[in-house]
């Protein structure tokens, strides 16, 4: 069984993001970039399936600029077998990503696609769902457990107030939540080997996908600073404020 894992290059989670002075977006030049953390979890899950003898090949795919190949190398260093870079310098929205992935899937024919539930840059949380819809495949989103059962996959999902397990016929789409696993550190020998693993380069045009944005960003702004708190003198004053001013009790 082949597993496809899309991985996105995003601003590293440690970076304190700053909005560009003209409000067109956030500052990305000379900022540390890394693999989207949810995608690391996706790669890890695919590798575990391979180590368990269930997956035969793990293919990582990234859609983005030339530097996204570094993100693919990270996936290869963790243990993925090969990479596909769909190179574009454009901003690619979730729908376009889903369309490109659909085209990649048509060529690669994986039985399982594991994505992160969202990317920590734009937090869209849409790609996996859109991809499932475009393909007409089942989807198990926000997965905290993934078990392959013959021709199906059992996905335990994190939902409001608990967990839900769904059974999907393969091929299927899974998106990862934080609790699914703890991604490994790439081992030194694997980092060295990753250099020799193949990365195919493709383009959105080659797949016949128009990546032109469908959305228009009006402005980007820093969140407002937190306002100073108030000190209350007594418990009864606190209760009164919660009742009258905050209206929460």
């Amino acid at each position, binding site marked *: 069984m082949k597993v496809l894992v899309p991985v996105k290059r995003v601003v590293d989670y*440690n970076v304190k993001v700053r909005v560009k002075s003209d409000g067109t977006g956030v500052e990305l*030049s*000379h900022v540390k970039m890394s693999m989207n953390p949810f995608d690391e979890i996706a790669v890890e899950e695919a590798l575990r399936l391979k180590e368990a003898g269930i997956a035969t090949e793990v293919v990582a795919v990234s859609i983005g600029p030339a530097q996204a190949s*570094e993100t693919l*190398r*990270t996936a290869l*260093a963790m243990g993925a077998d090969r990479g596909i870079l769909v190179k574009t310098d454009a901003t690619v929205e979730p729908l376009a990503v889903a369309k490109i992935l659909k085209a990649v899937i048509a060529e690669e024919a994986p039985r399982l696609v594991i994505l992160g539930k969202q990317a920590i840059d734009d937090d869209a949380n849409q790609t996996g769902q859109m991809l499932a819809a475009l393909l007409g495949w089942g989807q198990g989103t926000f997965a905290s457990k993934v078990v392959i059962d013959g021709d199906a996959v059992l996905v335990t999902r994190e939902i409001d107030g608990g967990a839900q397990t769904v059974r999907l016929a393969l091929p299927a789409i899974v998106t990862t939540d934080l609790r699914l696993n703890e991604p490994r*550190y*790439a*081992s*030194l*020998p*694997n*980092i*060295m080997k*990753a*250099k020799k693993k193949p990365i195919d380069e493709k383009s959105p045009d080659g797949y016949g996908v128009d990546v032109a944005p469908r959305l228009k960003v009006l402005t980007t702004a820093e969140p407002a600073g937190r306002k100073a708190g108030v000190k209350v003198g007594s418990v009864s004053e606190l209760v009164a404020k919660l009742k009258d001013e905050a209206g929460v009790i």
Partner: protein
Amino acid sequence: MQTYQPPLRDMRFVLHELHGSDTLKDMKGCEDITPDLIDAVLEEAGKLVTEVLAPLNPVGDAEGCKYENGVVRTPTGFKDAYKTYVEGGWNGIACDPEWGGQGLPASVTKFIEEMMCSANLSFGLYPGLTHGAYQAIVSHAPQELKERFLPKMVEGIWSGTMCLTEPHCGTDLGLLRTKAEPQGDGSYKITGSKIFISAGEHDLTENIIHLVLARLPNAPKGVKGISLFLVPKFLPKEDGTPGPRNGVLCTGIEHKMGLNGSATCQLSLDEATGWLVGEPHKGMRAMFTMMNSERLSVGTQGLGVGEAAYQSAVAYAKERLQGRALTGAKYPDKPADPIIVHPDVRRSLMTMRAYNEGCRALSGWVARNLDLMERSNDPEERQNAEDFTALMTPIVKALFTDLGFTNASMGVQVYGGHGYIRDHGVEQYVRDARIAMIYEGTNGVQALDLVGRKLPAHMGRYLRSFFHPVLAYIDSKLDDENLGPLVGPLGKAFGALQLATGHIAEKGLKDPDEAGAAATDYLRLFGLVALGYMWVRMADVAFQKRAEANGEAAFYEAKIATARFYIDRLLPEVAGLWGSIKAGKAAMMALDDAAF
């Protein structure tokens, strides 16, 4: 708060831009070592070090190691962290692929060492000693011992130690008493007591391989009668797994000023089985192979701790509000300005920064020579590199560890009273950094090594490997428009170094006490000139890159400013040192022992 992120940008600067990593791949065994691979390795190492090792640094300090009935437990979390480290293949990073290592050049691995020292010095000692033992075995042990022990040590499931020190002998190993009796079957029975043995006993690995200095029967007195033996904690069985317990027992651990996560052990050897490494009575020579590389590593410890202290101090200086800038409030909306506005706080921060980045650059230069010495195809280049490393080893060891301690102490100063109390973790840096000035040959002994061995060696040949390139560089840049203001003072300091060298050669030849009295000042003078040379070269690169530095101009501007600070504010110490050296031993040796 202990604050640390690997200074990857600066490391890339030193590696790629200052020393040119693109030529690494021309060396033997480095065919795959390209800049992008190096970056990937450094980045992943940085992740491991910050996420796994750094959080355990204060834990190890607070808990220390625990001794009970011959067994030593490392602090909470060390075992798991060690497992992660070993499973990631990092233990063998610098080891020969023949024994399962990754064979990366020192030019790369030195930076990873630095990161480990910054994140958790105590932890780093365990693999550090294994690597030292690995080197002695690789260079001197018979093939059969190599095959039996190296693969597991390289993998990291067995660790190593170096057992030199005894209660009555530290610096003066000629006094060593531990005995070795030949058994007729090629093995020896070793009896004696060793103290201060780092990683002598612990729970991180299934076996510990001690390298022990001891005397054979009828050995000549002094250092010429010492041999080196390999003594495992568990004697390996035929299948290579640990077998019966050998007669080497941990009888206690030390309670120390710092480095608490590292077990410093008393070992009692009672007819322990061991095998000879190298030739009889040539143990010191074998030990010195590993001592030299270990000395460079201890220098890196100074740099590592100094860097962590610097980063922690910067974080605090931006946040602590106290007083107003002398020129008027800079942050009028706040109750006071952050202390980073004050010139005196700047003095500390810039000093730390200039020492750290200067040492990192010098470390990169020495590492490149370590690689050339082992891997160059040109015999002349190999010889020159060997001369240079021999010359620079005592300087790196003593200067870096002195500066590391200075930096750690300055870090506490920036924190004020909040640095002196335990909560912020920066006083740990002071306590941890202190040992690096003592072990692997005290810094005083390093200075004697420089003056007594390295200067006179081959009629001063080692000196050429430093003096020639520096002189040529200064000459070539005197008229450089940008560099002129930096090269002038460097030239003057270099002149003082030449004078001091001549002075010591002349006076020291007549009276060794004169050489001894000048040694420590001379080593520091030499080291400060070496850092000065690095700083001008760094500024040189920064001036060139500044123009085309899309978006990174700030990085290069900072380099240039720090170079100016070093040359203007720190390098002048050279003049004072030269003054002290010139004054000679007279006042220093005047008092009778009884007058103290």
